[in-house]
């Protein structure tokens, strides 16, 4: 019975959260501002994370002795609690956008680095041997064979990074950056009276996750990787 009541309250909060998006009833202007801020933090952090992780992932498959240290280090960074991470960064770079970008970039390293390395290592060794035996250079083997074939695994890593970045970006507003977290924290601070704000923030984050995922699917399909046609689907 109590569960039914709680479920009812949850659905009402969700409805109120959606009403928060309506002009006149809610504050669509604030929603848009925070969606934009949240999106910007996510996008910039992912650009940095990819720019660092993709080459790093490739590098550790070439220089084997770096493999373990790099995976361990990125793993350790991933386990730092997010509040502690922001807290540690503030004395170094202040508050706002910059520490948010640094923290979220660091959190994304593990998924992308590891998936890039695992994807490249997972390419059938017979294919690589054939490529070497035909006289392809290491560079063209990487660009024409290994990366295209590793693409599905690499993109799986990027997708994990996207979801965790969107979710963690809510915390950034606690440290002075503009993100949907602002709505959530306001809602919580109101002591249960403004669950509509909490729901509005969560709905916004879910919307962004869908948008980013769609964009990434589009990007993946436009690259010369493996498609369903090639694997016999």
């Amino acid at each position, binding site marked *: 019975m109590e569960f039914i009541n709680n479920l009812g309250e949850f659905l009402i909060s969700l409805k109120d959260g959606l009403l928060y998006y309506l002009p006149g009833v809610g504050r669509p202007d604030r929603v848009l501002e925070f969606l934009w801020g949240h999106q910007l933090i996510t996008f910039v952090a992912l650009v940095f994370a990819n720019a660092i992780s993709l080459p790093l992932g490739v590098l550790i498959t070439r220089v084997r002795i770096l493999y373990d240290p790099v995976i361990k280090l990125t793993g350790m960074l991933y386990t730092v609690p997010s509040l502690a991470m922001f807290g540690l960064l503030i004395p170094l770079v202040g508050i706002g956008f910059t520490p948010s970008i640094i923290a979220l970039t660091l959190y994304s390293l593990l998924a992308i680095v590891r998936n890039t390395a695992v994807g490249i290592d997972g390419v059938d060794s017979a294919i690589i041997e054939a490529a070497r*035996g*035909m*006289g*392809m250079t290491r560079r063209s083997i990487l660009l024409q064979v290994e990366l295209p074939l590793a693409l599905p695994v690499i993109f799986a890593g990027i997708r994990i990074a996207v979801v965790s970045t969107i979710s963690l970006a809510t915390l950034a507003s606690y440290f002075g950056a503009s993100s949907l977290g602002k709505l959530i924290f306001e809602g919580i601070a109101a002591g249960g009276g403004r669950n509509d704000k909490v729901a509005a923030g969560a709905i916004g984050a879910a919307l962004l996750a869908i948008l980013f995922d769609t964009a990434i699917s589009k990007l993946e399909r436009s690259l010369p990787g493996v498609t369903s046609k090639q*694997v016999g689907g």
Partner: protein
Amino acid sequence: MAVTGHVFLLLTEEILLIPMIQFNDVVKVYPGASQPSVDRLTMSVPEGETCVVIGPSGCGKTTTMKMVNRLITPTSGEIFVGGHNILKQDQVELRRGIGYVIQQIGLFPHFTIRDNIAVVPKLLGWSKARIDRRADELLDLVGLNPAQFRSRYPQQLSGGQRQRVGVARALAADPPVMLMDEPFGAIDPITRDHLQNEFLRLQKQLKKTIMFVTHDIDEALKMGTLICILQVGGVLAQLDTPANILAQPADTFVADFVGADRGLKQLTLVRVGQVMQTTLLLGNVSDSGADLAAKMRSHKIDSLFITDDAGKLAGYVGLDEAQTHPGKPAKAMLRHLISTTEEEATMKDAFSTMLSYGIRYLPVVDPQRRLVGMVTVDDAQSLIAATQPAPAGG
């Protein structure tokens, strides 16, 4: 005596005696290993020969082959390909000039068949038009219809078709030397026999210098014009023609390796095309049951091969059916043949096919499936009787 005979043959037939592949005192010791994998190997493969490298596991046969295109670097010694010391050549350039076929085929799954064949020509900077022409020509050569296959992806092909593309890819830039690492190892026995026959036909036209690694002695005897037997530790036991390996094994290791049934193995040295009967009694698909029955009775046989107007083998008709349906044409009572063989197949292939299907004769067809002859169990048995190894010293 037979050894000298072979060398003499080479001297008279080959004006240039520079071997295409030459190993001089080659040693390979892997880091951390106490024993060498290849030990002071000196051997040569003359132009146009197919040298099959074989031996028990751990004999370094794959290592030996991979040193030729420098996928593995020798610890010491020299290797020459076409007269050039490969250790002084750029390894990428070297590899582009050597065809390479591996057991797992290693086609690029994200490339079309045409693009897979195009890899080396592209590296060599050929024009698109020239690559397109060459890809179609090669698909034809390996028996795949270019229009049907060029735009497909490897996953859409059967194992046998993929192996054909693997061979086409290795031949793309027309390299004088081919390395083949158990190329038919991962293919089912029936398709393997067929691909071996096809490759023998191809090699008759192409006359490449081939180094071929296998662990299957029957395949070695069938495919090789020369056989190089290595012992564990990469020591050369014998390099000779298949006939000499069987007739005069250099030592007990070779004799044991070749196997106890050397009389049966001799069948591997005889090709179906050499012994098949070519004048056959045939029926046509439109002949009536009565005609066929009369033909069979007059020659005292109980079945008859039936061909169509193009000479293609359609099946066979038994005496009983022909007598039961005197008015029907042959095509209405045709029975399907269990198996066929090809001229390039060995008598061992043909014999084991007949034994495993329990049949007494096997029709021989050409690549267009036209009936060209027939071999029987009796043919095989009389060959075994004729080639029984004489007692030692004989």
